[in-house]
């Protein structure tokens, strides 16, 4: 295909100027637009991490799929874990519009050369964990993700619209499960409280380091691929969640949690980052297991992918 030649090919600074103007006007950058290399690399990393997190995130809850305690819960959980596979797929697709390749990204995940959200390295000890993951972990994810629906990169923003719509079902099913369990036996109520105790702080850590220790945020904000600061989103999550905990009848494990009458916002205690550091540095309870499962899925079934490719080649044009 020969493109009509332009009289004056645009030089780099003109392209940069056009890119900056597009961002400044709040318009979307689309796949075939010129973009700075740093923007592209940052986006691929961010979207890939997000996709990896969805795929690894299938496992903590997936561990309960076969044992879900009612058929209705089994169907709900199956639909949810399936959604997460879908979310990973939408996101890998968005990364592919930037020149990445899904199989290559999967390899990098399995070889631990790319990372995923540390929250998914915690184990799910009881069925209440399924509910708490929906309520707190998905709730925190929604706080992070809703602003991404306005990401400056079009394919990512569009993928996130769909993801966010589906995530809202995830959070609601989790909260509903917990409400049901809280009307159940004393043992069930204790299970819920125990799960809340274990997941509350990791959920707050999901928002990342405090703003003054988050060096890369400024550039991402300028590029419109990050919309709110870590602390801002964390505060928003706490303010949303505390009243929900009250309705549920559980205690959030933070003695310093208190409503600030002046601001209408909740003050909360200092986060102990050393615990998260331990999980991140590969000493989390489930790091190896999570990766091993994905590796087995890839390697044990490579013959299936190859078979379908071979069949397609044999029957091409038939």
């Amino acid at each position, binding site marked *: 295909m020969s493109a009509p030649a332009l009289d004056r090919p645009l030089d780099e600074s003109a392209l940069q100027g056009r890119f900056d103007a597009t961002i400044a006007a709040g318009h979307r950058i689309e796949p075939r637009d010129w973009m700075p290399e740093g923007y592209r690399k940052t986006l691929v990393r961010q979207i890939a991490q997000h996709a990896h997190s969805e795929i690894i995130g299938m496992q903590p809850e997936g561990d309960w799929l076969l044992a879900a305690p009612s058929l209705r819960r089994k169907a709900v959980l199956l639909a949810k874990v399936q959604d997460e596979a879908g979310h990973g797929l939408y996101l890998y697709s968005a990364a*592919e519009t930037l020149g990445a390749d899904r199989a*290559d990204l999967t390899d*990098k995940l399995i070889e631990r050369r790319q990372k995923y959200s540390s929250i998914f390295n915690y184990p799910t000890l009881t069925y209440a964990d399924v509910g708490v993951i929906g309520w707190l972990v998905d709730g925190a*994810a929604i706080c992070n993700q809703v602003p991404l629906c306005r990401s400056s990169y079009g394919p990512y923003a569009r993928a996130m619209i769909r993801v966010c719509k589906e995530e809202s079902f995830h959070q609601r099913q989790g909260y509903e499960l917990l409400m049901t369990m809280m009307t159940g036996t004393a043992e069930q109520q204790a299970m819920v409280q125990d799960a809340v105790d274990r997941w509350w702080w990791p959920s707050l850590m999901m928002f990342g380091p405090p703003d003054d220790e988050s*060096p890369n945020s400024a550039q991402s904000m300028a590029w419109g691929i990050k919309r709110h600061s870590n602390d801002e989103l964390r505060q928003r999550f706490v303010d949303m969640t505390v009243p929900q905990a009250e309705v549920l009848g559980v205690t959030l494990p933070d003695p310093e949690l208190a409503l600030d009458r002046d601001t209408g916002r909740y003050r909360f205690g200092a986060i102990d980052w050393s615990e998260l*550091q331990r999980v991140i540095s590969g000493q989390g309870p489930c790091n190896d297991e999570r990766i091993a499962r994905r590796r087995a899925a890839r390697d044990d079934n490579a013959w299936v992918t190859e078979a379908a490719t071979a069949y*397609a080649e044999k029957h091409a044009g038939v």
Partner: protein
Amino acid sequence: MSDLTAEGGHGAVPTGPEVPVEPGAATTRRDWPLYEVFVRGKRGLNHVHVGSLHAPDEEMAVHAARDLYTRRNEGVSIWVVRAADITASSPDEKDPMFTPSGDKVYRHPTFYEIPENVPHM
């Protein structure tokens, strides 16, 4: 704390050495090609691009699209097309290809100011 980042929807991802992802990093492995998926949401609407997926061939791509993009009854009809088969205008052509219509504002309904009390417009 600098070895943590919250980018990506699930937050708190460890930073640390990561390999850059280069464009066209597709390996020599024979992975399935990429298909673009278009769904007609309901009768009377156009097919709209909803995303993409990998499939070994057209038939399986339609199946996968049905399973993935219409599992909540989002569509009544699906098109798939290999991403590699799409011919697109280049962004560099944008000016010559699209600006000529930019001044033909009379083609756009909002060009015509209609008093608000005119019904059914």
